[in-house]
């Protein structure tokens, strides 16, 4: 049984770079308690009818069986309204939806490649790995335009997850995009005979670059995609993702949002 349930904002914390972390409380145990990294929720406030559908957000943190948080940035009107929300404001939530990343596997090194609002699934992944004592099996590569775009990095340090940060202007970490340290890391792995895989989420141009790199080098990669979604649960057929395989399109919400890189039919 899927659930759509009411939630209340219990905190709305402004971070650097215009990001904010919205903590939501269902008041009672809900299905988000069992969210897998990469799964998402459809959220909607009491917004009247000019904003018709829910908005999709990856789960950032599962705080307990009734509370979770999301990380967002103002994109359009819906995220604008969310940024202005205050504790006590109510929303409806549908989820968790979709399929997450492959489970933590200590036999390979998982390179978590994140950019922008693509951080949440990988942040949750890193947390899960740390909890399972598998922190050494994951490494974060996380990029932004400038230092303000890199948020919640302390938490990874606390979990002792190795992280390489990049900024395009060099204001923090490596100068350049995430593909710079990623390429280095893949070369090192290949030199060492080490098995690595890539789990990535972020802006589509970044995912395209990551995918190209991975396909090029035959490295296993899983991409968490964003598509326009009206429903989030497989009925509107709006969230098509072009794929190779028996059908030309898969659905981001039900087949994804995480897809093996080689399945995605991108130029």
């Amino acid at each position, binding site marked *: 049984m899927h659930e*759509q349930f009411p939630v209340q904002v219990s905190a709305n914390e402004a971070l650097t770079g215009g990001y904010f972390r919205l903590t939501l409380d269902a008041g009672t145990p809900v299905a988000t308690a069992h969210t897998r990294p990469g799964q998402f929720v459809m959220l909607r406030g009491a917004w009247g*009818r000019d904003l018709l559908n829910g908005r999709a957000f990856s789960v950032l943190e599962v705080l307990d069986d009734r509370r979770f948080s999301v990380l967002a940035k103002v994109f359009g009107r819906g995220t604008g309204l969310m940024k202005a929300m205050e504790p006590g404001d109510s929303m409806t939530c549908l989820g968790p939806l979709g399929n997450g990343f492959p489970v933590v596997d200590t036999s390979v090194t998982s390179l978590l490649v994140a950019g922008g609002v693509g951080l949440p699934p990988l942040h949750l992944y890193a947390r899960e790995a740390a909890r399972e004592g598998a922190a050494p099996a994951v490494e974060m590569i996380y990029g932004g335009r400038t230092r303000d775009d890199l948020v919640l990095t302390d938490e990874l340090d606390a979990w002792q997850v190795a992280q390489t940060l990049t900024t395009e202007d060099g204001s923090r970490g490596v100068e350049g995009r995430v593909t710079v340290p990623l390429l280095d890391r893949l070369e090192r792995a290949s030199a060492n005979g080490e098995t690595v895989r890539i789990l990535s989420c972020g802006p589509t141009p970044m995912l395209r670059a990551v995918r190209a790199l991975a396909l090029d080098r035959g490295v296993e990669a899983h991409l968490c995609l964003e598509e*326009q979604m009206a429903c989030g649960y497989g*009925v509107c057929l709006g969230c*098509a993702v072009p794929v190779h395989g028996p*059908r030309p399109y898969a659905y981001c919400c039900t087949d994804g949002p995480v897809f093996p890189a080689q399945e995605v039919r991108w130029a």
Partner: protein
Amino acid sequence: MGVTSSLDASGVDVGIDFGPIRLKNPLLTASGCFAYGQQFAGFMDLRELGGLSTKGISPAPRFGNPLPRIYETASGMLNSIGLENVGTQVFLEEKLPFLDALDISVWVNFFGTDFESYVECARTLGEGKDRGVSALEMNISCPNIKKGGIEFGTVPEVAHRLTKACVEATDVPIVVKLTPNVGDIVAMAQAVHEAGAAGISLINTITGMAIDVRKRRPRLATTYGGLSGPAIKPVALRMVHQVHAALPELPICGMGGIYSGEDALEFLMAGASCVQVGTANFAEPPAALRVLAELKTLLAELGFARAEDAVGSLESIPAEPPYKAEGAQ
């Protein structure tokens, strides 16, 4: 007569006769907004619905359109899904048994790519008669398919011919779903009525467009798409009212932007015998049952003993006292 009685706590008898089709209540879900129903089983008791209309079925399976396929507009959304569906065969074998078991009115929405395939589709789906199919909802308004299509839904004579052929191909009542992208909706309704349609569904989406000015590109890969949601409700209501006024004996299933019991009642008063909830399902999977509950409450509050009494119950605004231009220049 179904699991849920049409008479319940509200005291209102919500059973409706839609031409030859008996509905336990006037709330159906709309084609393309409810898939084949299964996804909703987790959210609601489907047996409480009056019925549902499936995603549009064509003789052969079809894949959908390139992306992007959807875009939100002010109080509405554009879609260009491309009538993706599993085809008649898979539908009858894999999807219908689930629906049959619900014991509600199952309307199988269908379309063809040309005259013959429409008729073939009606004939094949009509075989589902004893397996739960209570009506075939013929979509003659496919803004999203390229071949043929447009004339079926916009030229009364063509619609008449097509409807007649499909009606003759099957024993299952045919409900024709009309497109609002015409100048004279009454002429279209009359044409299909005279061809033997058991009723009509009004309205399908209105063709629209949106542009991403930063990319200089349409928001949808197909450039145009169908507009649905609250934005189109006034247009839908007007068409239902026009057709009901002209053809009071033709059963109408009304839809377009229904999000509340009050919206649904507007459609009934305008002349619809039943309604479908489409886009509203996306944000709220059990929307149709909330709308039904609200409708019952509202009918009771307004003193309607039977939902049927509300159908076409609109009165006109009393005339103003006459104006005498005494001091007029």
